[in-house]
């Protein structure tokens, strides 16, 4: 084959890869929506202690995830289950954490929604919001220092842009010109506070205050999100320094299962309504000729089957041994903890 034919072939293959990427992304959206609804229902039934729903942020997260590569590292936040599923974190890992059972990778220590999946390049979730951001800067430094490929992504909500950690991390990443992508999932609310009362500018514009590139994307359309995310990722990957990417999306339900949004918000986007990112994305992909109703139904049904099966399975796993409570405080157990364990168990 001549040079021209090779180019043509590559184009065709790339097109095919891109098509599959979109379909895979959409599949992850459906799977994560299915999981979300399952957990929310189970929580109402008393089968799960707590949860922060992710409904409405699937397109934003997965659109970004599509633009990332295997070497990239993520400092996720509590609402990033869709992204985790898309990056291959198995349902079992998510569910074991939700149940806090014996098989949970973190021994049932954290509330649901605070996952550990280090093997999938996720760096774990603390509850105090945005406090992973400064860590992302340090890790990006370490990656560069070690001449390792890959960028570091740190995700957070709109409310989290008001935190001290946001400011320190943004400034340091810019000063040291590190490959960090700050990913703001702007769902318009911080529990009850609308973003208009959180801050008086658009969040992506805050990038400029740090001498950093800022990007804004429609986080309700996976296709569109992917396009802008790719620009932001390319910017960071190319060594041009960190960037801030804001995705506009929705929180399609309560802040958490403990929250009652009827107290403060009347405009919650409904599941299946035309603002629902799954509907928006579905329509986009249909228009692109990538999916049809039959496929969608199949994916939905299969998702329900898998989620139900895994849910029932992991629910049966017993709680962690009380003994585990005393582990992992230090690398070497101290005499104090040993003594306390003796007293308590």
């Amino acid at each position, binding site marked *: 084959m001549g040079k021209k034919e090779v180019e043509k072939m590559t184009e065709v293959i790339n097109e095919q890869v891109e098509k599959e990427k979109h379909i895979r992304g959409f599949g992850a959206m459906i799977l994560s929506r299915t999981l979300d609804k399952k957990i929310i229902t189970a929580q109402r039934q008393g089968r799960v*202690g*707590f949860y922060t729903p992710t409904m409405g942020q699937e397109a934003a997260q997965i659109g970004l995830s599509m633009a990332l590569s295997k070497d990239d590292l993520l400092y996720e936040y509590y609402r990033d289950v869709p992204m985790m599923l898309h990056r291959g974190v198995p349902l079992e890992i998510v569910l074991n954490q939700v149940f*806090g*059972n014996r098989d*949970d990778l973190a*021994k*049932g*220590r*954290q*509330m649901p929604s*605070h996952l550990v999946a280090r093997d999938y390049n996720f760096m774990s979730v*603390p*509850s*105090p*919001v945005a406090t992973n951001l400064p860590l992302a800067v340090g890790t990006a430094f370490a990656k560069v220092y070690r001449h390792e490929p890959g960028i570091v992504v740190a995700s957070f909500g709109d*409310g*989290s842009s*008001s*935190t*001290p*950690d946001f400011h320190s991390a943004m400034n340091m990443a810019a000063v040291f010109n590190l490959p960090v992508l700050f990913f703001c999932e702007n769902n318009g609310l*911080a*529990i*009850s*506070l609308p973003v208009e*009362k*959180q*801050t008086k500018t658009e969040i992506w514009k805050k990038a400029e205050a740090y001498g950093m590139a800022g990007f804004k994307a429609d986080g309700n359309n996976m296709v569109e999100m992917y396009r802008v995310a790719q620009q932001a990722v390319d910017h960071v990957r190319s060594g041009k320094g960190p960037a801030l990417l804001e995705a506009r999306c929705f929180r399609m339900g309560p802040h958490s299962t*403990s*929250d009652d949004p009827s*107290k*403060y918000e009347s405009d919650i986007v409904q599941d299946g309504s035309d603002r629902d990112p799954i509907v928006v994305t579905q329509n986009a992909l249909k228009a692109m000729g990538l999916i049809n109703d039959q496929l969608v139904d199949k994916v939905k049904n299969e998702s329900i089957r898998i989620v139900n099966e895994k849910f029932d399975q992991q629910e049966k796993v017993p*709680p*962690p041994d*009380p003994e*585990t*409570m*005393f582990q992992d*405080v230090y690398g070497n157990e*101290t005499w*104090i*903890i040993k003594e*306390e*364990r003796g*007293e*308590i*168990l």
Partner: protein
Amino acid sequence: MNMVQAINSTLDMKMAADDSIILLGEDIGKDGGVFRVTDGLQGKYGQQRVIDTPLTELGIVGMAIGMAVYGLKPVPEIQFQDFIYTAMDQIINQMAKMRYRTAGKITVPLVLRTPYGGGIRGGLYHSQSGESYFVHTAGLTVVTPSNPYDAKGLLSASLDLGDPVIFLEPKKLYRFQKMEVPENDYKVEIGKARKAREGDSITIITYGSMVPTVLSAVEKNGVDADVIDLMTLSPLDIGTISTSVKKTGRVMIVHEAPRTLGMGAEISAMISERMIEYLYAPILRVTGPDTPFPYRLEDHYLPDEKRIMDAVDKLLKFR
């Protein structure tokens, strides 16, 4: 009334009487606070007096200090005590030291409210009992009620103190108990402990969420215990402690915070410093362990009746 209602109605009563009282915090307005402690107050007093703030504990506390030094009486809320630490510099270096560094020319009359402790399966970051950090800090007054009546009286007294008060609300007790709470404004004196129960054979010193647990343990088991509910953690009421210790000669301290440098350490040290000759037995501590707070194993973390009785038995048998 439960404790949430007691605190809510006290804020309401005080705000009606004194327009210098301003509430500020995350989700305290429309939403009424994630525990509903400020429910209805924004509707009644407006957005200037019940302020929904951006998400910055440092900012909430700093702004509150700035109000307090200029004639207002702010009541900042930190949604969970676990999230207070970005405000720690404001608390330690501004709030606690303002009176001192200005020789009394500028003061900080405020009440920082925050729910603390376990009991809601909150895991590492929604269950901490960080009272030691505040009690160690000179310039702060630290208060914690164990029932609705005391919650009202202590809050009212805190609002009138004229100095910064860290008002720790044991979230486990928010809806634990209903009590008659007088409608009028009364005060529970700051710096004074309360005898939750009279007894002669052993002194149990505790506070906050552990008070009902201790009472239940000793009552079920017929222990003749003097139970002290500290209510004020700083400054401690050495008088009430001394009288009881000198009577019983056997002492234990119960709290959920980790043992190392928990309140038990200071109380124990105070006792052995000044009345060791009255003791018939070691001073024991029944506390949370020196680990972070686990989600699923919460019940194992928190001191329970069994652990309390183990220590009681050890103390009573000691000779």
